[in-house]
């Protein structure tokens, strides 16, 4: 079905999906403002090309790619985004501190990843996409998507067991 490029059609598509897109943007960028910026950029581009985007099999995935690319652009322009989180504490901790530390360790691990790799982690573990779908969203080989996830797991494991915050 071809959707004509009208504000109504675009808005009808976007509005119910906006919260999901913002959550995805936030997890990929790690920043409230950067998430808004990345989603703004992606939607502006999607609107401009809506006649094309809307006819794709999975417009949602395409827009997520746009969000990721927008963040990569900002990353390249400004370098690594600093996201202050608490230092993960190695060793055994009682609940609920342990859970909080784990969450922060995850956030810190994500903050240290290059944007495409971070997006792969979000797509895999938040969006529950399989590797083939991740590869389509990120426009990369499936092997690269697997590699992104594998390396992220190694990084988190190292971080948790060594206390290395990097």
């Amino acid at each position: 079905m071809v959707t004509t490029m009208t504000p109504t059609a675009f808005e009808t598509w976007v509005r119910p999906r906006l919260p999901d897109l913002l959550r995805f943007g936030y997890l990929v960028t790690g920043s409230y403002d950067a998430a808004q910026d990345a989603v703004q950029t992606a939607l502006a581009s999607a609107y401009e090309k809506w006649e094309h985007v809307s006819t794709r099999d999975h417009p949602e995935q395409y827009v997520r790619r746009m969000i990721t690319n927008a963040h990569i652009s900002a990353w390249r322009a400004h370098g690594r985004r600093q996201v202050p989180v608490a230092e993960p504490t190695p060793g055994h901790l009682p609940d609920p501190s342990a859970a909080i530390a784990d969450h922060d360790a995850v956030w810190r691990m994500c903050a240290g990843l290059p944007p495409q790799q971070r997006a792969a982690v979000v797509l895999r573990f938040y969006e529950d996409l399989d590797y083939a779908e991740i590869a389509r969203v990120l426009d990369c080989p499936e092997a690269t998507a697997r590699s992104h996830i594998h390396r992220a797991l190694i990084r988190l494991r190292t971080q948790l067991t060594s206390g290395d915050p990097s």
Partner: protein
Amino acid sequence: MNTPTDNDLETMIRAGLRRHAADAPTDLGAPLPSSGEVTADSDLPTHAHSRLRWLAPAAAAAVAIAVPGGILVRNLLSDGSATVASPSTSTLAQQNPTRDPAARPAGIPADWRSESYAGVQVWVPPTWGWGGAPARFDWNGGESIDCASWRAYTRPGSSAYEQMSADLPYVGRPVMMTDACAGAGGGHPSVDAVIFGAVAIEPGTETYSDGMVRETRNVGSVGVTVFSKDAALRAQILDSASEVSVDANGCPTVAPDVGKHSTWSATGEATGMSVCAYDQSDRLLFSTTSSPAAAATYAAATTKGEPLGEGRTAAPAKEYDRVFIRVTLASGQGRFDHFSPSDGQYVVRDAAGRLVTVAATEANVAPWAKNNGAVKAYVAGGSWSDSAPWQRWFRGILG
């Protein structure tokens, strides 16, 4: 703690992401682009006050683009049978009221090299390296980041990315050389340096307690600052500063278009090559040249490509830093190839006039990137280069 299994880690990541997703913004912070207030303007720099992007009138982009690149680039490499203008005879240079960019200003030693940024060019001694400069990034709340010692730098003839040196003068540009800069305190170089476009530095002269002197002048819209205890050196460098439309390395200050500004012949030997790199605001970030031998090697390694896929154009996306390789032939013809550091591909206008993509290989990257300290300092390789043997020729994304 016990070493967690992959399943443990996956569970932890899922929980952590769910937890943090709850902190995500609940509104876009701007009207939808379909609201009528939007200019979905891909030409606007993505980082330039992006929160105002949707309300920015198209005129803003038009102004940014129109001055003066459209005309100037067309003059540099024209369509059809026209030739590639050499920097010294460029119409651009003749139109520019300032000096011929390739002409060495009086008093500048023969072995000094030119350095340009955003249309301003200076001349520096050949041994000087490359580094950063105080800059402002929106992710830091617009605060100036002064990398204190500005400690990440590269040397001429090397792809090594080094830390602070007490003996290497350098050229600095407002680029995030390393995330290590963030949070660093202020300071000033302890070595001679010239820096372009530094934020929070006003024109004038300042003497520090260690005897270092800063002298800053505005050249056009770009601040040029020289740090040195040697007044003659400061004057020599600052007096060499000029506005240019095409710099001494043949790079236009506004990015060229591969399709429109390349002429090419299957015959003729490549005799020269320049690297012209542009930031996402379309500013010429830096340029260098390579030897005729390197140019010939490069040209030979970029002859086979695949036609551009459907929907792709020769105009690369502006959301990435862009590198253009300027190749000139003995015949006077030449071409601009676009190299995308983000995906490791060239877009080239081939001898038949088609636009083709050429995958990066060691053979076609080495001639301009290997042991090129400027490339190492300012061009970040994308994920494509993670496993490539030539990754070391580019800066890591984290510095």
